[in-house]
């Protein structure tokens, strides 16, 4: 009897944990989607998440309003992304090198600022968290209630953003331009639309969304900024993007899967029956990466945008 109760509680919690862990992944993956759909590779998602997380905490620390923190994270992510955009789109630099530079820069910058603002090396002071949203009607349903009843607002925003992104990319003229910039930029150019500006917007959007993901990590999931607190989540987001085949719902499903694997580790940790698996936690952590490699190796064909990674040089007209 008690076992069943525990099982129900644990299932609900596992669902909740899946949502919690996947939110930053999905947000950053959506960011990556906007950038890569326009044809700019963005491996700097990790850096943009970091800077988002930092700015969220810093802004909340100074204003004591976590929503301003979220805003600051979005802006900061966008600003860092605009550096990437300028380097890649305007100066036609190497997109992967620039992305790597963005990661290095963000890591150094946030750790440094941590020391400047709080005088500490590792973890900032605690700040006010985003209050959880309690949805009364569903919070009493056994499993679903635990999972969806009281979550951070950013979790719901993430779910909404997935739908919005799908709508924007596939159902609006702007979305068509985004797709064209990634698939066939010269056609877009011929139609009289500036490829550069579409790509710029795409990259900056990617920074904003990644910053949001970072903000979730920092002021909703935790309530402080820790040095390198994203610990590779930007790369997992990139994996989710590829595993999700460059579509918004694919990102959601892949992100949820990877989030579930994250949550599973802790389920193993607290259940004595599974404690023998503690040693093999590293293998669970490997699963997302292995899945992506297997997927790319041809179990399922993934189709990146055609013009991805190549700077667009306007052809000189006679």
């Amino acid at each position, binding site marked *: 009897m008690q076992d069943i109760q525990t099982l129900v509680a644990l299932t609900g919690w596992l669902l909740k944990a899946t949502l919690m862990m996947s939110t930053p992944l999905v947000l950053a993956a959506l960011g990556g989607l906007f950038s890569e759909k326009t044809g700019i590779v963005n491996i700097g998602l990790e850096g943009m998440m970091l800077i988002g997380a930092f700015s969220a905490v810093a802004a909340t620390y100074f204003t004591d309003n976590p929503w301003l923190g979220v805003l600051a994270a979005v802006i900061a992510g966008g600003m860092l992304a605009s550096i990437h955009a300028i380097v890649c789109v305007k100066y036609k630099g*190497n997109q992967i090198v620039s992305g790597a*530079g963005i990661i290095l820069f963000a890591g150094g910058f946030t750790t440094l600022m941590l020391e400047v603002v709080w005088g500490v090396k590792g973890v900032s002071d605690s700040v006010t968290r985003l209050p959880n949203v309690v949805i009364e009607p569903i919070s009493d349903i056994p499993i679903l209630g635990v999972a969806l009843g009281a979550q951070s607002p950013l979790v719901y925003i993430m779910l909404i953003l997935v739908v919005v992104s799908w709508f924007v990319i596939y159902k609006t003229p702007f979305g068509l331009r985004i797709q064209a910039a990634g698939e066939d930029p010269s056609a877009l150019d011929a139609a009289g639309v500036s490829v550069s500006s579409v790509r710029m917007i795409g990259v900056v959007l990617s920074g904003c969304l990644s910053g949001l993901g970072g903000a979730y990590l920092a002021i909703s999931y935790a309530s402080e900024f820790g040095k390198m607190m994203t610990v590779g989540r930007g790369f997992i987001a990139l994996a989710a993007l590829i595993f999700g085949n460059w579509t918004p719902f694919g990102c959601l499903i892949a992100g949820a899967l990877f989030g579930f694997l994250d949550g599973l580790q802790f389920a193993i940790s607290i259940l004595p029956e599974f404690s023998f698996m503690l040693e093999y936690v*590293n293998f669970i952590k490997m699963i997302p990466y*292995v899945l992506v490699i297997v997927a790319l190796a041809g179990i399922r064909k993934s189709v990146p945008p055609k013009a991805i990674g190549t700077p667009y040089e306007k052809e000189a007209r006679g």
Partner: protein
Amino acid sequence: MSGEYIEDSAVDVSHTHEEKSSAFQKLVIVFNKVKHRLPSRDYWKPLFWSLGSIILALLVSAIMMTVMGYDAIMAFDYLIRGALDQPDRVLQYATPLILTGLSVALAFRCGLFNIGPEGQLLIGSMAAAILGYVVALPFLVHPLVCIGVAALAGGLWGFLPGLLRAYRGAHEVVTTMMLSYVAINFTQYLAGGPLKEQGEYAWISQTTRILDTSELAKIFGPYLHWGFAVAIVCVIGIDFLLKRTVLGYEMKAVGLNEEAAEYAGINSKRSMALALGISGALAGIGGAGEILGTHHRFLDGWSGGLGWDGITVAVLGNNSPWGVLGAAIFFGALRAGGNRMHQFAHVPIEIVGLIQGLVVIFVAAPRIIDWLGRQTIDSASWIKREPREGLPGIAVLVFNLFGLFLGIGISASLFATNPILGVMFSMVGIVSGLVSYRILSRQETALSLSIIPAIAWVDAMVLDILIGEAMFFNMGMVMVIVGLILSVVLWMMQALTVQPDGGEV
């Protein structure tokens, strides 16, 4: 040979400057010889970009340091001294960077982007660490065997993405990165699980110490080990591979244009797989060298991002073996100096990471450096063309750029204690910045505007003396005086130049 030419120039010089001393003549001859041996201008462009990026990154980081309230000059002083004081440490830091840098560079020459040297390095180092204590072999042979097996292990880790790229079209950027994380987790598991050292230190995730026979001896000092020599051999080897062998030629051809290479009868798939394989092997050697020479065991988390730094090194070294060597030594110096800087100036070591990131961002877009270079040339020609406007223009520009830097820096350090003064100084900085921007864009009005920052400085200093207890008196007064003198001189010069023309203004 160019002997003919040397003869010629020697004669030329000796005829025209007979009165000069012979030593000087010889120097000139040598200089001419070197000058004409040097490759054309295009060859130097990457060097120009790299150096430009470094300088730009250092400048930006200096500004950021000042804004954050650190003493940038003292920090750089310790940084440089730290690097010059301990060459052994610089080279030790450089050793793995040379190899991971080479790894990235070689793949890049074949048109592939290997961003997973971290994983290849870890797998290689794990292989070396295991072999170092499991197998008993005589001196000299043991480390070589370890390095060889590490190269194989790392090579395997690179060959797999190579195969996937060549035959399944899986993009290597993704696969190498993902495999890298697989390697990180796998080695973590090994070091913390089955291979964990038992006994009194069992709570640290690390393998057993390697046998004495497999250790790489130190060359000199407490840091530098023979792994450095291995790295140098690898540099020479890769240089040879790329320049003198068929395989290297094929790789480069594939890197330049895959389809054309295929058309010319080159098996591009084989070249790509091999390039990534060799690339992985290089990273593996890098890991083995560090384990055998420095750490003597696989300690969880020992790498600290050496693989990532390899990307930085390759990018800065323009993907040429000797460039990678130089770039690795530069980053080694940065890290060795950075340690000193942290130890004595208590400036966080993360500054080094910041500088690295900036260098990479700037190198990624050589056009930024080109633009700056063009600006410099423009300014030079401006001085040449219109010395009366150009010279003072440059002087005002330098003054205002310095003012921008100083104003923002002072304001940042003041905001906490005296916000009003902080705002004032940041205004001064912004005004200076605006004026310098107008001068840079060659606005006619810019020169006459130069009085404004001077007035702003005067205001700021008055405020500083009134409510800020004259904290920045000396520095501010220098700025005030220089600013006033500059504007007075400018005004006089304009007055002088306008009058003879006859009231055209």
